[in-house]
């Protein structure tokens, strides 16, 4: 059983990492409810093994890997990914470009995973590669394609809107 002192360290980690991990899992899976379940499960496992996870090179990488694997445990053939990013009642400090959100959401799966881990969770290319089971070169290639898609799509959108 985890000792109280170890739990205290976990709570700080949990508070700081919860939202970034959730955002990354949400984008990687495109399944809001499953993402929450997976994140809960991953943090519960982190707590269970906190003595080891706390000394991991990057505990967030450990948690995201467990969360993504947990998501895979769902019966995917009966699950549907959300076609659009979830609508939430939130007052953004600055206006959010809905095209950007939607375009990221609609990236191919591997590109979304790389964007989720490299950009939203700020993992290194090496940690991203390790988590996804691909090479560092592939991480770079997927990220390059994703950013290229976003640039071209958003550029085209801006042009179309300007022409109207």
């Amino acid at each position, binding site marked *: 059983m985890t000792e109280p002192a170890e739990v205290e360290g976990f709570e700080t980690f949990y508070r700081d990492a919860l939202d970034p991990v959730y955002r990354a899992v*949400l984008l990687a899976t495109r399944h809001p409810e499953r993402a929450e379940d997976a994140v809960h499960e991953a943090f519960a496992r982190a707590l269970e093994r906190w003595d080891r996870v706390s000394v991991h090179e990057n505990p967030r990488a450990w948690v995201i890997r467990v969360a*993504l694997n947990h998501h895979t445990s769902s019966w995917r053939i009966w699950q549907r990914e959300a076609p659009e990013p979830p609508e939430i009642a939130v007052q953004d400090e600055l206006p959010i470009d809905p095209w950007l959100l939607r375009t*990221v959401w609609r990236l191919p799966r591997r590109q979304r995973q790389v964007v989720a881990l490299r950009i939203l969770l700020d993992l290194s290319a090496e940690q991203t590669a390790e988590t996804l089971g691909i090479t560092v070169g592939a991480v770079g290639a997927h990220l390059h394609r994703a950013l290229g898609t976003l640039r071209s799509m958003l550029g085209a959108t801006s042009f179309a809107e300007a022409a109207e």
Partner: protein
Amino acid sequence: MNDEQLVADVRRAFGRYRMEPVAIAEPAVPMPTDGVARPPLSGRRGMLGGLSMVGVAIALAVAFTLGVGPGHGPESAFAGWQPVPTMPDRAMRAIADTECHRFMDGNVDTLGGQLPLVAQDQRGRAALFMFGENSKYLACLVRPNDYGTYDAFGYGSARALEPLNGHIELAALGGSLNVPSPGPSDFVVIFGRTDASKLVIERSDGVDVTATVSDGIFVAWWPGNGGGRTLIAYDDTGRVIESAQPWATPCICRVEPPTPSSGS
């Protein structure tokens, strides 16, 4: 728009999504203190008695990071695979007892709850644990990962096949699994019931895989997604009593016992 600005905008766009913190409790399933709890051997044959041959293929996958392992990388986790099985060691059984059951707890809607362990089969550094009852079953494969811990993958498959002619009854055949985990993670499972003493799978690549046969149940697995070619069942004298090629067609090719010479 440069990449730096684009990355900042993506982060800001997704920054609107937040998750409410909750009280995190450690999982209720305690770590085992000894080996896996197994049903009595005498009851195992009946556990698969109601296995139905359904006409759909279903697959589930789960990977856990768990337990402390010897620290070998996933690239080597399947490298030690061998065609002749051994009994899983105590550490593997302990992992299975915790994580495979946790998986069943998390898929009660589909699996119907906890299924009894009916077969176990270790090949190299990875071990497969088969749980089954009635028409439901779970293949749970445990292997070391590169974190010095273990991954466990759950996999279920059913496929319409005629029961083989008296000596082999197939419940699960083939299938492959890929999960977002480092290293190769595809594996193929063949599982069913037999009254043979020994069962060998001739794979299409020429490798002969010996199945674990115990209490009327057999199981074998191998990494990758390559198919098998022929199932051969032997009696306790080493005589072939049945040969089947379920990968090619549902044709069952029973080998009749040799007839006594007419003395001509």
